[in-house]
């Protein structure tokens, strides 16, 4: 049985996506795959018991039958932290090891997802390197390459890991288009020279950053006024319609995969958005648009959703949603798999943990 711990220096760097994508690729290669996120930090209630949102999503998408309590045996709650600070013993290691032994039973490979940043959990002895050492697994580092300072961060993470044998290599994730050349021409050779294996780099992807209109509706507690059958479409950006209508048309048609946020009384902006065939109209301030505008939106098949909050508030919610959306849907998993297969040396990752993939 092989295992691998996916770690990163910060949150939202793509650990879940990598676990999910690699998990599916390994499954397709005929391997029995297990998955764990030992410490759950995004707690949700599933059928009366608490579990982690990421791990629940991955469990479902990978079709894993193991119970949630073994997939995420430890929950990061206030009391866990308080006890750790007070020095109260919680037998966390035993829970971890027991869960791992259940999960790894009859599996060919287990993917273990780190919690938050690499050093997170140090106060209760469950930082990613500590977990790896307790379970005897090796670490794959995923880093969001948002600037050149990511190089410093990676070198720092390696010092935290300390033991070079425990580290198998790294994946550079979400590399912006303007840095791709620099990363491939300078950064990757730099790491390779230091003996650090780079399994590949994945560029920023709009599909993965995007959210479904239905997720927006849910998050904003919005009322759908028209085209409720079109909520399964992805929105890549949000645009704020607060300008003069002539500029709005130019602005909207450059990014048609957008949701436009505007006031319910801005019929001109609403029509500009509809004519530009944007994906969705979000009307703020609980102001209903005119019947004629709604009729045009319906004819164009563009959902119009009404929210109570003001524009600023709605922008803040959208800011949080786009780019931080979870991979809960098949369409995104497909995209993840496509990106992993296209950009990462998957056989090399498998080989580094002693697994051979069937071609």
């Amino acid at each position, binding site marked *: 049985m092989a295992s691998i711990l996916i770690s990163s220096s910060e949150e939202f760097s793509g650990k879940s996506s990598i676990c999910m994508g690699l998990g599916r690729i390994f499954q397709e290669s005929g391997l029995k795959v297990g998955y764990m996120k030992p410490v759950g930090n995004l707690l949700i209630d599933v059928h009366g018991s608490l579990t982690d949102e990421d791990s629940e999503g991955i469990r479902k998408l990978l079709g894993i039958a193991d119970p949630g309590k073994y997939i995420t045996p430890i929950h990061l709650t206030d009391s866990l932290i308080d006890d750790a600070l007070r020095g109260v013993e919680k037998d966390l290691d035993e829970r971890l090891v027991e869960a791992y032994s259940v999960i790894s039973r009859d599996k060919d490979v287990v993917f273990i997802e780190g919690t938050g940043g690499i050093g997170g959990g140090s106060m209760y002895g469950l930082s990613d390197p500590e977990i790896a050492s307790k379970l005897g697994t090796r670490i794959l580092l995923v880093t969001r390459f948002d600037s050149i300072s990511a190089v410093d961060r990676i070198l720092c993470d390696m010092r935290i890991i300390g033991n070079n044998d425990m580290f198998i290599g790294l994946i550079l994730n979400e590399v912006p*288009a303007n840095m791709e050349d620099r990363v491939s021409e300078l950064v990757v050779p730099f790491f390779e020279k230091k003996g650090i294996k780079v399994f590949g780099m994945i560029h920023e992807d709009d599909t993965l950053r995007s959210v479904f209109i239905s997720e927006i509706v849910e998050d904003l507690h919005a009322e759908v006024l028209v085209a409720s059958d079109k909520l399964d479409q992805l929105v890549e950006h949000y645009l704020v319609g607060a300008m003069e209508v002539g500029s709005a048309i130019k602005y909207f048609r450059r990014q048609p995969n957008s949701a436009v946020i505007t006031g319910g009384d801005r019929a001109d902006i609403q029509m500009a958005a509809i004519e530009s065939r944007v994906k969705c109209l979000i009307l703020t301030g609980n102001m209903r648009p005119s019947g004629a505008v*709604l009729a045009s939106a319906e004819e164009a098949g563009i959902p119009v959703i009404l929210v109570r909050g003001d524009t600023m508030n709605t922008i803040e919610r959208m800011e949080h949603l786009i780019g931080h959306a979870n991979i809960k849907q098949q369409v995104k998993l497909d995209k993840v798999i496509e990106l992993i297969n296209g950009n990462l040396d998957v056989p090399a990752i498998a080989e580094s943990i002693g697994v051979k993939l069937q071609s």
Partner: protein
Amino acid sequence: MLEKMFDPDSVAVIGASRTKGKVGRAVLENLMQNGKLRIVPINPNVDEILGLRCYPNIMDVPDGLKVDLAVIVVPAQMVPNTIDECGRAGIGNVIVISAGFKEAGIEGARFERECISLCEKYGIAMIGPNCLGIIDTSSGLNASFAANMAYEGNIAMMSQSGAICTVTLDWAERIGVGFSKFISLGNKAVLAENDFLQLFEKDPSTAVIAAYLEGVKDGPEFIRIAQRVSRSKPMIVVKSGRTSVGSRAVSSHTGTLAGSDAAYNAAFKQAGIIRADSLEEMLDYSRAFSVCPLPEGRNIAIITNAGGLGILTADACYNAGLSIASFEEATVERLREKLPPAANFYDPVDVLGDAGADLYEHALDVVLEDINVNGVIVLVSPQAMTDIPGIAEKLAKKIQHSKKPILCNFAGGSRIAAGEELLNSYGIPNYSSAERAVGSMNALCNYYSIKHHSHEEPERQDSDLVFARSFIESALSEKRRTHGLESMDILKAYDIPVVDSRIAKTLPEAIQAAENMGYPVVMKILSPDISHKTDVGGIRLNLEHADDVERAYISMMSDVRHYMPDAVITGVQLQKMISGGKEVIIGMDRDPQFGPLLMFGLGGTYVEFLKDVSFAVAPVTGAEAKHMVSSIKTYPLIAGVRGEVASDIDSIIRTLLKVSQLVTDFPEILEFEINPLMVLPEGQGCVAMDIRFTLKS
């Protein structure tokens, strides 16, 4: 087409009613004013209405009655089924007066779509829904629920607002203005302005076309039809929703975009349409066209009995671009013969306060005969001894038979009312102010130019279409939609001169490129994400040696990364530094209503603030391109001021024509801009220094 809509032998009213105050009753009563019309009320609940045999359903009407037109006033949800029945009964024309369609919301929009597809299925011509109906005075048809029938006249009017129809009819009734046809357009679901323009064009009883529009359904077709129609009949249009608040109201009201006012202005101008700013102006102009011949020039004579009014009118003429006529010697002499010595014998002619009808008549006769006079404005103020009705009577008779336009301004209130009424009884307008009279005279003069302007078709400009097509297709295959400097080659396909330039990805490449080109050079950042290079330090001018290039490169990269950290930078472009030219901009923005809207303006920092730009809808003719260049306020700066050398204006016009061709050839281009186009002194051409365009996704 539509003959039986406006001149039917038999009309059915579906939803006819006995109840006073109901639309179904009002329509019936209006139709019954025409004794020759066979009227068939349809109502399942009664056998007869107002003495007419009533049928329960349109399908029950005997074939012998052969209904030409059905006026539908049943509730919206019943209309699709009613149209289906009309189709099955073989009726070719319907007017849907009922409201509750797209203007009311989603359900209404669904009814409207059903009506449209049924009309398509049966080949039915439909006016409305949500309209007042139509009136045709020559056939005597009043298929509307308007409170009054229009007088007979030669003005055809269509309006996108039913309320504006009633306002106009009411006003017209009071002052005796007549119409040939009166059409309330409603939601324009099937028949719209373009259909009626063609109808008015061929209608012998129509001499003038007036319209109130909130938008047009098919912009390019509207221009094409209007260009043809305006050569035979004047078209005066009020287009509302000009301002941001107005356009918001249009969108809210109709569920359409009001459209860019610049685009409407350009389209109207190219189509030969006279744009009125208000309903009052539209009616003022229409009345002038209704009674006056066209002036063959812009020289206007003013006859007044009050010096002050004459001066005000002269000022208004000047402001409108009309000239005050310079009389022939004989004219002055003949005026002197009868006018008192204190009178003014030059334009404006002051016949003095005590002038009677004979003096006015004499002055008018004399100035009309002057070959330097193209039109006359007559001003009458109510002095104690002024014979208002007498003067009005004389003027009315003159105006009716004059070969030159004469417009009147009886200025005042109750004392001139008799004169105004008398003029009205002859169908002649009285303008309540000098400015209104001058505005209408100006409209007449403008239309004379429109009518006699030789119309040319845009000429195809030479281009390497194969190269351009492959260039655009390769750009379309890229993920990004906006393209800049790196795509300058598209201009070469249209033979637009492009500045000598090299692309460099690194500093050594940049220095090498500059050395090869020869100094001085300009360095520009290459990035599809940056539209305003100057704002982010992305342009360095006049670099004279390798050291300059090095400093410019390093500081430019630092500046650009500071201002736009996320921008993709693909390198720099080095251009040959060109001096001694003037910078202009040629742009295009694809307008949702009219398509490619070309823009021309002077370049430089203040352009966006001054908004001194001209527009035209592509493809443009040579004359239109020339007009675009000469109509900006800062044109003298290009033409050369104070002994300055003139710029090569012909090369700007050529470039405009080529850009017009490019954006016409490729509807995929949504926005396009050459900025700046460097124009060299006359005879030396022009050079594109930078471009930017956005493609459809």
